[in-house]
């Protein structure tokens, strides 16, 4: 532990974190960026919030249909995907950790691992979705439903399923692009990220938020009790 802090101090003494022109001091700068990112995440919470609200409304209204429609979802695949997402969150947290220690090699490795896991997530998601296409469970003119509950209600479930997981997947794709750019800039020692862990921290905050959305989507769609 003490060795680690020494290494940390040595690393800090080596080169100062850059101070941007509009700020007066580093703690002010760092907190500004973190708070700014959190305010952005507040908007993201409200953004997903609208959809979650629609979900709660229709689940409350059509609870039977919700149970029956959800049985066609693949719980093992959904569970695997959530674990993949949680793991990617861990690697992202470690990437921030190594950025703080200014260990560029391990930071890049962790960013790479995060991108890899995110891609695995998307591939699994694509498998799940294509199965739904084959079974005619995609909302629209081709929606087919044979069950006890009325088809429009089941279609509503799948509308929200595709809408919410689709929006989540879009955030994952944006995350892959952002993490990729960050890794590239780090590898090139670009002045925007050199000696500064804040960009990694901010991307990390975004990625953990995507993870949190996944944490809520999983029980809401895959684990509906009778």
């Amino acid at each position, binding site marked *: 532990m003490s060795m680690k802090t020494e290494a940390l101090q040595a690393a800090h003494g080596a080169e100062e974190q850059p101070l941007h*022109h*509009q*700020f*007066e001091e580093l703690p*002010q700068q760092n*907190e*500004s960026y973190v*708070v*700014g990112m959190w*305010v*952005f995440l*507040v*908007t*993201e*919470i*409200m*953004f*997903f*919030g*609208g*959809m979650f*609200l*629609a979900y709660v*409304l*229709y689940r409350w209204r059509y609870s039977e249909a919700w149970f029956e429609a959800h049985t066609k979802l693949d719980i093992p695949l959904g569970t695997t995907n959530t674990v993949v997402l949680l793991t990617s969150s861990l690697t992202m947290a470690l990437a921030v950790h190594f950025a703080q220690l200014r260990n560029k090699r391990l930071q890049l490795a962790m960013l790479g691992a995060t991108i890899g896991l995110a891609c695995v997530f998307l591939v699994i998601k694509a498998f799940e979705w294509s199965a739904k296409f084959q079974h005619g469970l995609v*909302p*629209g*003119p081709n929606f087919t439903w044979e069950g006890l509950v009325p088809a*429009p*209600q089941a*279609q*509503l479930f799948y*509308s*929200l399923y*595709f*809408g919410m997981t689709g929006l989540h997947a879009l955030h994952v794709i944006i995350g892959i692009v952002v993490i990729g750019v960050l890794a590239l800039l780090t590898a090139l020692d670009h002045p925007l990220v050199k000696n500064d862990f804040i960009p990694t921290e901010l991307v990390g905050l975004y990625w953990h938020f995507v993870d949190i959305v996944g944490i809520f989507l999983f029980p809401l769609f895959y684990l509906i009790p009778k």
Partner: protein
Amino acid sequence: MSTVAPVFQGESPQSPPSYLKAGHTIKSWLLTGDHKRIAILYLIAVSVFFFFGSIAASMIRVELVSPRGVMLENDTYNKVFTAHGIIMIFFFLIPAIPAVLGNFLLPIMIGARDLAFPRLNLLSWYLYVAGGLCALLAMAFGGVDTGWTFYTPYSSMYSNTNVTLTIVGAFIAGFSSIATGINFIVTVHKMRAPGMTWFRLPLMVWGSYATSVIIVLGTPVVAITLLLVVMERVFHIGVFSPELGGDPVLFQHLFWFYSHPAVYIMILPAMGVINEVITCFTRKRIFGYHFIAFSSLAIAGLGFLVWGHHMFVSSQSMYQGMVFSLLSYLVAVPSAIKTFNWTATIYKGSVRFQTPFLYVLGFIGLFVVGGLTGLFLAAMSTDVHLTDTYFVVAHFHYVMVGGTIMGFLAGLHFWWPKFFGKMYPDNWGKLSALIIFIGFNLTFLPQFVLGYLGMPRRYHYYYFAPEFQFWHIASTAGASILAVGFLIPAVYLLWSLKYGPDAGPNPWGAKGLEWTIPSPPPTTNFVEIPVVREEPYAYDAEADEREERVPAETKR
């Protein structure tokens, strides 16, 4: 009470050049990170959209001169009033004061060199322009006929117009205002100069902060709502369409969850401007600083609890309607607090009737009318009669035009010398303020009568009630006067850029950090970050009088 005045950081030979002269290429403007230049970019863009919106407005007014309409087909009329609403709300009223006056002044008022995130600020302008272009393209190639509210299921299933492209435009513009909101919030929290405590902030900063909070908490909700409408049109994701399994009233809930607070996004910054101008031209401290500051936050918070009063005649439950009706009355309290405080500030002040102050007087009068007629609409029983009539139209124009645009013009005239270092002719300013006030009232007062008599909004004819024609003609005549009133400032303000006399750093003798630096300010605003040692609005009318008397006596 400390009265150490901030030292004027005058134009010494080594002082940096003004932000206007810090680069002359187009690139130096289009890739600038300077909040002042971005404010100017916004001013230009916002004026262009105001022009387009006004053209749509005049088309509406001309059409309604005759009971059977004058020149527009019925579906063209629908597209025109939709264009008017969308352009004016999303691309003029929402960005006008925060993105122009706020962008320019907020960092200077709190003693900072720039906003916290200059690149994000520039991005917000580009997003705004991109969103605006999407909307204009949609209107140029076919138009939209849903009204600015995009009510489902009409917008999501039936309308064959360019709903998707328009929504994309509004969506992008939403991100632009979110970017501005984030920037303002972090800047107010983290960039204040030493000694600039929360209760030494100018009240315009409080107003901008409260606005930003609303933007950040509300805009994403309307973004997802509009996105769902697009998904419904394109992918048949049926959250709002009964045919696909959804509930259209849910759209109204989600839409108004943002769009009612959005009216406070439009009015709160204007209220902030009023505080600055009113203290300067009455030479008095603001009355009840803390009450005004907290009433801004109260409006921001309560504004989120009243959206249901837009839905009294939707199939919303009656009980929810009653709750929303009561809560809507509550919002009147902080608004009234502000109005009373402004009135008390003018009382016994040594008032100077110059152009910005005339706009402030206009604001107070018109906002009171707009606000009080709002209570008619918040009461369920009268609202059932008045919903979707011209009474509603008149009400929100009194708040939006009489409030926001009056506030915007007051601020623009107040800080114009700070923006460009040039003074405009004050007499022309007073004249146009008077013309706008008269024209405005002539336009919208008849609409209250029309609405009460039962003229529905969004109709392109009224042959069923030709007796309305008198009021419609009065309204159209007023609109013409209003248009002249808006053109005059455009002319003399542009004229002043080249021919106006130099304004000097503080032409009004106003307090506040922005008046301690040269006009126009240098790129980094302050040579040295100031230390704030006094409250805002430390005006002293007696000292002013002494100063004014001294030269006169020495002359004699």
